[in-house]
Structures are given as structure tokens and as C-alpha cells.
């Protein structure tokens, strides 16, 4: 027993290298960002090395930055909602398919887009949604629409792009939870005579809630921090927080203000994720 405990203790030290790496390359930059966000920008010196709250005051009082944060949260939230509505039936289908072959094929199809990377997928959506793109050459056939649709460079386009980027993550997360729910529970529910839809609603959905909440948290965090999708599909007028942070730090060289925006973005992401998961958890389990 004691021998086993000692071996277990030894094994647990295996976590140290990974932990050190995360601390060094994540926590340390985060600390620096937090420090920079309190500094003051100077066109010549870049940073003056002082402590002040001016960057946060600017970010919270300027209507432009308020608007960008609100837009970002709205687009991330809407995309997450659509993703959940699409991912659940898909994940449920995959987890209940009886043919092992079809099941592997569907999982490969789900994961395949992840191999492309966000930038490439967003570029593909640009091809689809451009005025000379696929959507517009398929649609106008028998006078369905008069002029080419303007889809690209609108918030709708960004939501479509984000949904396609986030969907695989949600499907995979939910499917692993749905796999663990035994089919016998649905059969028991079915034996009482309700419609299949009602069985799913009352038996499967509550049991799958942890997976749904996890998927929602991942999608919302990724949506809030999205960079490639808003830049490529949203175009220059569409402002979201990820590109804005990059612009401040890399283009304007205003590190203090960019850092403050980054801190606000992270805080907003964590806050909204925690609040919504708490709310859902209390409601369902």
C-alpha cells in the first residue's frame, strides 16, 4: 500500500514539465500584459513605465470600443447558439448509428475541416460568399434574386463563417458525452409511448447537458477570440476584439492600450462563460 502510494507520488511528478511550460509561456506573458495595460503610451518612448488606469477608462468610455466589445459578444453568442442547435442532432446521429463503418466515416468528415485551419476555411467561405461566388451563381437561376446578394463583409457572413469553424469542436465534444449514454435508457423511455423527439428531449438532453455546456464554453471562448474569420470574412468595416487587439499592438504599437483591450477581452470571455455555465448547471443538474 505504501509502496503503491510512493509510486503514485512519483508518477504525479510527470505533470511538472508541462506545468512549468504553461507557467513560463502563458502565465508570464499574461502577467506582462496585465502590467503593460496599466502603463501609458508615448509616441517616442512607447511606454513610460508608470501605473495608471487611463487605458481602461478609454476602453470603457469610448463608444467605439464599447460597440466593438458588444458586437464581439453578440456574434460569439449567436454563433455558439447556432452551433449548439446544429451540433446536437449531428452528434446524436453519429453516436446512435449502428454501422461501424458509417460512424467512422462521419467522424472523419467532422474532423476533416479541422485539418484546414481557420484561415483556409475562412478563405473558402470568401469564395462561396463573394458577389461572383458559388452562392450567387447558384441562386439567381429562375429570377430568385435580382441582384447579387451581398453576403461577404456583413455580420451574417461572420456568423456563418464562425459556425462552420466551431461546429466540428462542438460535434466532437457532444458526441463523446452522448456515446456514454446507454441506448437502453431511450428504449425504456420509448416503451412508455412518447414520440422519439420527446424521448430525446426528456431523457437524452438532460443527460447530455454536461457535454452541451462544455461545447458551449469552448465555442464561445473561441468565438470571442476569433481572428482570421472576422478579418477575412468580416472585411475592414467589421470590428471585433481579436483583430482590434492585434491592430493596437502590431500596427499602432500602442502596447498599453492593446494590453488593456486584451485583458478586457479575456475578462469578458471568462465572465460570460462562467456565468452562463453556472446558470445552465443550476438549471439542469
Amino acid at each position, binding site marked *: 500500500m505504501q509502496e503503491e502510494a510512493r509510486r503514485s507520488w512519483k508518477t504525479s511528478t510527470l*505533470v511538472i514539465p508541462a506545468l512549468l511550460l504553461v507557467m513560463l*509561456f502563458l502565465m508570464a506573458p499574461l502577467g506582462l500584459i496585465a502590467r503593460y495595460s496599466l502603463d501609458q503610451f508615448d509616441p517616442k518612448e512607447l511606454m513610460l513605465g508608470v501605473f495608471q488606469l487611463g487605458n481602461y477608462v478609454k476602453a470603457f468610455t469610448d463608444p467605439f470600443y464599447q460597440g466593438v466589445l458588444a458586437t464581439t459578444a453578440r456574434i460569439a453568442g449567436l454563433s455558439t447558439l447556432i452551433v449548439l442547435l446544429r451540433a446536437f442532432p449531428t452528434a446524436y446521429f453519429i453516436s446512435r448509428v449502428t454501422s461501424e463503418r458509417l460512424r467512422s466515416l462521419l467522424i472523419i468528415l467532422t474532423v476533416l475541416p479541422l485539418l484546414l485551419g481557420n484561415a483556409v476555411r475562412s478563405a473558402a467561405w470568401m*469564395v462561396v460568399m463573394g458577389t461572383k461566388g458559388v452562392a450567387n451563381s447558384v441562386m439567381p437561376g429562375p429570377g430568385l434574386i435580382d441582384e447579387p446578394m451581398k453576403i461577404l463583409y456583413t455580420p451574417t457572413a461572420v456568423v456563418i463563417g464562425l459556425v462552420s469553424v466551431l461546429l466540428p469542436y462542438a460535434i466532437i465534444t457532444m458526441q463523446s458525452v452522448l456515446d456514454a449514454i446507454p441506448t437502453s435508457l431511450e428504449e425504456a423511455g420509448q416503451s412508455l409511448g412518447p414520440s422519439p423527439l420527446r424521448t430525446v428531449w426528456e431523457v437524452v438532453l438532460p443527460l447530455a447537458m454536461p457535454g452541451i455546456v462544455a461545447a458551449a464554453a469552448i465555442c464561445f471562448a473561441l468565438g470571442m477570440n476569433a*481572428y482570421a474569420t472576422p478579418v477575412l470574412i468580416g472585411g475592414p468595416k467589421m470590428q471585433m476584439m481579436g483583430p482590434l487587439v492585434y491592430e493596437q499592438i502590431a500596427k499602432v504599437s500602442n502596447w498599453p492600450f492593446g494590453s488593456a483591450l486584451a485583458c478586457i477581452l479575456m475578462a469578458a470571455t471568462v465572465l460570460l462563460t462562467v456565468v452562463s455555465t453556472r446558470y445552465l448547471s443550476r438549471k439542469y443538474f
Partner: protein
Amino acid sequence: MDRLTPGRIAFITLVACIFAFVVLPLVVIVWAAFFSDKILTFPPSGYTLGWFARAWSLSDFSSGFLMSLQVGVLATVCALALGVPASLAIERTQFPGRETVRQVLLSPMYVPAIVATA
């Protein structure tokens, strides 16, 4: 699960549409790579392999591609070397603060990539 009721057909159609949506960008980008038109138009006026030759003759692309390959391989090796022992420790042993450690190790997912590299 085997009878084809209207509800089941509707469900299968829905899932098929969602899969089409997931795979669409992939199909489009592969398809468009063979278009002969210089400016992207649908339907294309012809098909060509020329773009692939062009890509390799651009020194930016070939050097960038090799660089990405090196970075990718190296990052994968490092991630596995650190990640496998860490997951072993977290899943197979008990130690105080195990959940906290797990959360810390997962936290990079919540930090914008732009911030983490700043």
C-alpha cells in the same frame, strides 16, 4: 432505429445538410484550385493545374511551406513529450490540487492566441 418514418427521414435530411455545410469549404477550396480563370468566377471557364506549379515556383511559398512543416513537426514532438506524461499523471494518480493543475494546463485554450504570443 430501422423503420423509415417521416420523422426519421427528416432527421437524416437535417444531419445530411449539416454535414454538407461542414464539408462545403473543403470542397470549394479544392475545386477552386483547378479553375483556369484568373479572377474567381462560377462556373469556371476551364480547368488547369497551372496554379500548383505557380505556387511552388514562388520562393515565399516553398520556403514558408518548409518552415511550417518544420515548426509543425517540432511542436508536435514537444507537445507529445510534455503532454503524454502530464495526462498520465493527472489521470492515473491522486495528488492535492489535481483539478487546479488540470485547469491551468487547459487554460491556454481560453487565452487569445494573439495575447499568448505577445
